[in-house]
């Protein structure tokens, strides 16, 4: 028998209470993982990938908080294209719309001449023709969800379009997008002459070259924001707000988990006063008694954290595949982040256990041993 055996037996003795405590920790950790995972997923999946394609710089209106709500005048494009180092400017209109079945998807509009069209992998059908004005190409998941095939109609924003083809996996729009010629989308949204972003391709991709061109662009177009696509996630205000919210909520969740652990151990220590008296009577050192209680706390934390990580990953899986957010984010949790959460939780749980462990030493167990 070891000290660990004793800790485990003590927890097993009040099985329901131990499990409830672990469950409390699990819910906190699960929420934390779900939140962080969602925010990271948004970061990696949606906004970052909006620009990733093969563009180097993303251009939006200055002061834009939410990228989809701002628009730019299409006619700036040729002016930007004139700046030295800019190889190509491609306008893009983006929006989120609801489909008839309540599904939320990303709608993108590309100019007929955009090179983005060539990056789509067509599964069936063909690209929409600009001339028809009423054709769209849809992602395979959207197609599957709506049971659509090329040639069938689809209602978008109250207008009927014809599906010219189905594409597979094209980064952000993943499988969940609908893409149409820019002109048609501008009409649909009554945003004639407007785009959401310009995607710039530069002549070279070296870091110093890119910085120089961006410097120059910022000088010439003070009302626009130029962001290297690799930094889009970092600079996005919505993500910043989400990230700090996730942090605050996570800290609160962790704090609650620690309080739950402290509370349970405290109860358990107090009700075991005579047993702690016996341990004292047989000559256990304070440090051993301390270690016993702290070990119980660590075991509870570890069980709760493992359950919580499972719960969090399950939640995240739901967010990624079934929630209204699906298609907009990409699994963003690395093993490293999970490891860090595990370590942080264990550390906090252990730190929390120190309080009841300390309390165990302050008890006066002698009275409980007295025979009457």
């Amino acid at each position, binding site marked *: 028998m070891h000290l660990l055996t004793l800790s485990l037996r003590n927890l097993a003795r009040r099985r329901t209470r131990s499990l409830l405590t672990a469950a409390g920790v699990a819910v906190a950790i699960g929420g934390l993982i779900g939140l962080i995972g969602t925010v990271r997923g948004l970061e990696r999946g949606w906004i970052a990938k909006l620009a990733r394609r093969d563009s180097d710089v993303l251009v939006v209106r200055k002061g834009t908080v939410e990228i989809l709500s701002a628009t730019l005048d299409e006619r700036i494009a040729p002016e930007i294209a004139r700046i030295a180092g800019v190889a190509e400017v491609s306008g893009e209109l983006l929006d989120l719309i609801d489909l008839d079945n309540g599904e939320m998807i990303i709608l993108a509009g590309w100019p007929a001449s955009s090179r983005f069209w060539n990056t789509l992998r067509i599964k069936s059908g063909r690209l929409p023709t600009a001339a028809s004005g009423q054709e769209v190409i849809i992602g395979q998941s959207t197609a599957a969800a709506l049971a659509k095939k090329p040639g069938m109609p689809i209602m978008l924003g109250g207008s009927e379009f014809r599906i010219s083809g189905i594409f597979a996996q094209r980064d952000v729009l993943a499988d969940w997008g609908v893409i149409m010629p820019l002109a048609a989308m501008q009409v649909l949204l009554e945003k004639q002459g407007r785009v959401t972003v310009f995607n710039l391709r530069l002549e070279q991709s070296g870091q110093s070259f890119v910085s120089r061109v961006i410097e120059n662009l910022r000088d010439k177009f003070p009302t626009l924001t130029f962001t290297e696509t690799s930094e889009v996630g970092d600079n996005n205000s919505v993500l910043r707000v989400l990230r700090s919210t996730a942090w605050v909520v996570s800290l609160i969740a962790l704090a609650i988990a620690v309080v739950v652990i402290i509370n349970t151990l405290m109860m358990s220590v107090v009700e075991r006063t005579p047993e702690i008296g016996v341990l004292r009577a047989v000559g256990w*050192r304070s440090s*051993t008694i301390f270690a016993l209680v702290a070990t119980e706390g660590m075991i509870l934390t570890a069980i709760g954290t493992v359950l919580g990580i499972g719960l969090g990953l399950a939640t995240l899986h739901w967010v990624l595949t079934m929630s209204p957010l699906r298609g907009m984010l990409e699994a963003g949790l690395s093993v490293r982040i999970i490891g860090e959460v595990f370590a942080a939780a264990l550390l906090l749980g252990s730190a929390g256990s120190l309080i009841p462990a300390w309390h165990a030493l302050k008890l006066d167990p002698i009275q409980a041993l007295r025979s009457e």
Partner: protein
Amino acid sequence: MITTPILALEGVSRRYAQGVTALQEVTLQIAPGVSVALRGPSGCGKSTLLHMLCGLDRPSAGRALFNGTQPASAGAWARIRAARIGFVFQAFHLLPMLNAMENVQIPMLGIERNARSRRRRAETLLERVGLAARACHRPGQLSGGECQRVAIARSLANKPDVILADEPTGNLDSQTSAAILGLLADIHKSDGVTLVMATHDATISSFAQRTIHMLDGRLLVLPSAEAVISCTC
């Protein structure tokens, strides 16, 4: 020549906050290897005295010595209890979630590093108290007498020089009591441990070499209360 008493109290008093005095200037010396019965009515201070003898409780006045020296701290007393003193309680105080084997090993944790040695010693001790067949039973599955045997085995875990027993038969019927007292006396005789048993039960005296009587926090020593009880038999 006088041997150094293994246990000694010098003018020890224990007062509680509420003005209760549980012990009043008790002076006592117990020589190594004797067996002593500490008798007196309930509430006279027997448990308090036993706690003083092993440093579980600290005197309000006076000093408690072990083997002629005064341990400097609670930690020093803990080390002495771990290595040299076994304690047996009226209410057994076995840990309910551990079986007999495991209960006996409790004092060995942190003393005997080798888990197999702990096991082997626990087996030997359970055999010694006649409970080899009950090694895997938990306290809830044992009778009162069996629980007290496990507790006695536990008190012997680290080969102590002293066993302090506080009302060891208080929760047992008379037949079982006699068996338990017989076991303690037997251990005293064969191992040469110093045995101090507190009880309000008159039958215990026949199992001890000496009997000390207590009343209201004092030792009753005739003719003079000043006399030092040196149980150097």
